[in-house]
């Protein structure tokens, strides 16, 4: 079992505009914890830094400051190649995340080989089929030699999940895993993820726009606004009882045919420009916490 501790993560992107250089703070002092068997949902509008966090967690980007610690049960820190084994990712676009030139088998066998999970060819093949079966891609022998274009979007996303789990990952980062899929198959993929998580006691970070699925598929929700956490707490608490203006706005904006008033529901009472991301409401402690300079301009500074 593996857990992830993210403390005070900061990511600055340097932007160059001719001679003027500015810095964009994509992620601003974010702390998170992913523990085995729990799903944390990361929600927030476009550009709020969700994917950046995912990239840092999968070590595709380096944080500007702050720490990401991945620890096994016995407390040993994981690093180097083992990190790649422990922490895996499912991408948003199933059409883009599989290489059209390689077979499904290749996609799953590679991580096995890289992380030396199998020794012989025979063993590798067996593991591949086993993985495919776990994600309900049956008959596995028929699926394995196919190429991505021969699969539907949902099937592809399953392959992506199998690939992520192949090296024995205990931490799964899912960056909007279903937003590109047809509506009718979204729940299927999410359910699959949920099952695997329960079976393997995975620590999952579920990144999404969609408050409704965030609520139903995660234990905890962390709301991100302009790089900062503005609210966190148990899933139901955050959605049903939002405290922060931004969370309220999100909840109001999400389509919900059950809600009285429908489209007329007025989000206008909350002025987006005056939303304060300098404070964060923590449902666990039930308290507001200062998180820094409460100005959105704090994001971009010249250096």
């Amino acid at each position, binding site marked *: 079992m593996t857990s992830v501790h993210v403390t005070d993560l900061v990511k600055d992107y340097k932007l160059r505009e001719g001679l003027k250089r500015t810095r964009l703070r994509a992620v601003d002092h974010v702390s998170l914890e992913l523990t085995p068997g729990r799903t944390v949902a990361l929600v927030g509008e476009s550009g709020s830094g969700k994917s950046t966090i995912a990239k840092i967690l999968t070590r595709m980007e380096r944080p500007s400051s702050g720490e990401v610690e991945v620890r096994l049960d016995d407390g040993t820190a994981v690093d180097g190649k083992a990190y790649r084994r422990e922490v895996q990712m499912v991408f948003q676009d199933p059409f883009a995340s599989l290489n059209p030139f390689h077979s499904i088998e290749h996609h799953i066998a590679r991580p096995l080989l890289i992380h030396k999970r199998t020794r012989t060819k025979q063993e590798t093949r067996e593991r591949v089929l086993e993985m495919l079966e776990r994600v309900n891609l049956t008959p596995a022998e028929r699926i394995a030699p196919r190429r991505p274009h021969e699969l539907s979007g949902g099937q592809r996303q399953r392959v992506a999940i199998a690939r992520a789990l192949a090296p024995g990952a205990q931490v799964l980062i899912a960056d909007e895993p279903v937003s590109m899929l047809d509506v*009718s*198959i979204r*729940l299927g993929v999410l*359910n699959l993820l949920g099952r695997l998580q329960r079976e393997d006691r995975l620590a999952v970070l579920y990144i999404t726009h969609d408050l*409704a699925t965030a609520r139903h598929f995660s234990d905890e929700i962390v709301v991100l606004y302009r790089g900062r956490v503005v609210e966190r707490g148990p899933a139901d608490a955050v959605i049903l009882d939002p405290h922060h203006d931004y969370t309220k706005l999100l909840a109001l*904006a999400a389509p919900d*045919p*059950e809600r009285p008033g429908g*489209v*007329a529901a007025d989000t206008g009472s909350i002025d987006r420009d005056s939303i304060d991301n300098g404070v964060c409401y923590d449902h666990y402690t039930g308290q507001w916490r200062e998180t820094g300079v409460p100005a959105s301009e704090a994001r971009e500074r010249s250096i």
Partner: protein
Amino acid sequence: MTDAIPEPRGAEARPVLTVEDLTVVYEVDEPVTAVRGADLVLHRGEILGLAGESGCGKTTLAYAVNRLHRPPARIASGRITFHDRSGDDIDILALEDAELRAFRWEKLSMVFQGAMNALNPVATVRAQLRDTLLAHRPGMSKGAIRARSREVLERVGVDPARLGSYPHELSGGMRQRVMIAMAMLLEPQIMVMDEPTTALDVVVQRDILREIVRLRDELDFAVVFITHDLPLLLEISDRIAVMLEGEIVEFEAADRLYREARHPYTRRLLGSFPSLSGTRGAFIRDGGEPSETTEEQV
């Protein structure tokens, strides 16, 4: 709760567009019938939702209505009739090129799926508004053009100072609003919107939806709103048509559809959306507990 949504207004008397038995075929190796015998009646001032999965033919239908489909697509059968405010009926399929050009935008305007790219990247907003105006109102004075452009921008909540901007200088939401402003420019009677908010943030999306509803209320045009986000449609539309593989399988008032969907596909579609505010673990209608079956169905 649907009482906030106006009933289809004058559904009995005021149709603005009738589509009868429309079939659109893509003449490829194995011809694809993207729209199959669609029948639709659009009423003045209503918002008609068109829902369905990717590839079911929503866009094709929307294009065909304006005869914007391009070869190899062809209209294999059907009639599309526009009922003008003046009382004339226009057979869209019979229009000559010049007539068709005059009809477009003047009576029926469109906001496209990729509205982010619907603006000419090398022309300013002003120039594109002007082109549109001049195409339909040749000889319109400069002053009038300017005034009208400012007016529509203001109406959609974009600062008229942005007239001189190039599309790339605008945010996605602003571009979308500019497109809507452009669609309103000639005060058409129908506005077809093909997933106008897909690429946008939920909050921005909400703002734009509100804008559309408000403008509809003000200007009384009919809207065909296409999306696969059923909850959203349920919220804003008066009536909803559900498409499956080119066929309209269900065509109902929004609240009826929500509560007593007849077609299994509609029900399945509805079940795909967990409710935001309902009890945890419960799904709209017969969505039920997340089950392995749903998982398997993919």
